[in-house]
């Protein structure tokens, strides 16, 4: 059995399957017709807030 069968080009470039799959999904969403495109992009929006911690205390968070 081949232990290292031909890896896909994205794996060889250091990308994981999840990254590859998400890129493909985003590209497909960007090629949709109008009402569906805004629905799809709105559905996939992610909100997160990042806060750096120093000396055991969080600083003010940045929202994304």
């Amino acid at each position, binding site marked *: 059995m081949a232990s290292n069968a031909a890896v*896909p*080009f*994205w794996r*060889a*470039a*250091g*990308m994981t399957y999840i990254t*590859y*799959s*998400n*890129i*493909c*999904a985003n*590209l*497909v*969403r*960007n*090629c*949709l*017709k*109008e009402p*569906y*495109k805004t629905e*799809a992009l709105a*559905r996939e929006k992610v909100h997160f807030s990042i806060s750096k911690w120093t000396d055991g205390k969080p600083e003010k968070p940045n929202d994304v």
Partner: protein
Amino acid sequence: MLRRASGLLARPILAARARPFSTDLPAAQTADATFVEAWKKVIPNMDPPKTPLSFMQPRPPTPSSIPSKLTVNFVLPYASELATKEVDMVIVPATTGQMGVLPGHVATIAELKPGVLSVHEGNEVTKYFISSGFAFIHANSFADVIAVEAVPLDRIDASLVQKGLAEFTQKLSSATTDLEKAEAQIGIDVHSALNSTLTG
């Protein structure tokens, strides 16, 4: 001591012979038998609580003759497109090429590439463009297709596809690092698959 060792060795061998392959498992149990026994030993008067295993439907067993219909579950992260729908055939865009799945297909796990999934039921064919995903075909003629994004073909905008294809072809020629080249290549693959779906 040696006599006990031979007894201990005999048990795992028996267990291995009794359950050779996971695809041949009989219909899974609906209640967790060992948990129920242990519960009754400690608390005989109360009913044991239901475990998650008892809420799950058991896997339908592999019938001895090939069933006439394939049961398809097609799910997306945000919706379940087809849930246990009985169809005649599905064609999935596997990385190894378009694969047709009929009832009685051998158990397979296929990684999907961007392409068209077509579901054939009687005379009607429903097509979806899938961005990528996996198809699990079980021995009992159940097929699970999972995709991140799937759109019916009439929702694709041809001009955006052409624009994307041109943009990524240009990005590939100007890409420097491996990662940029890979991303540009992915863009080209997806857009050319979209293109051939619209024109072909």
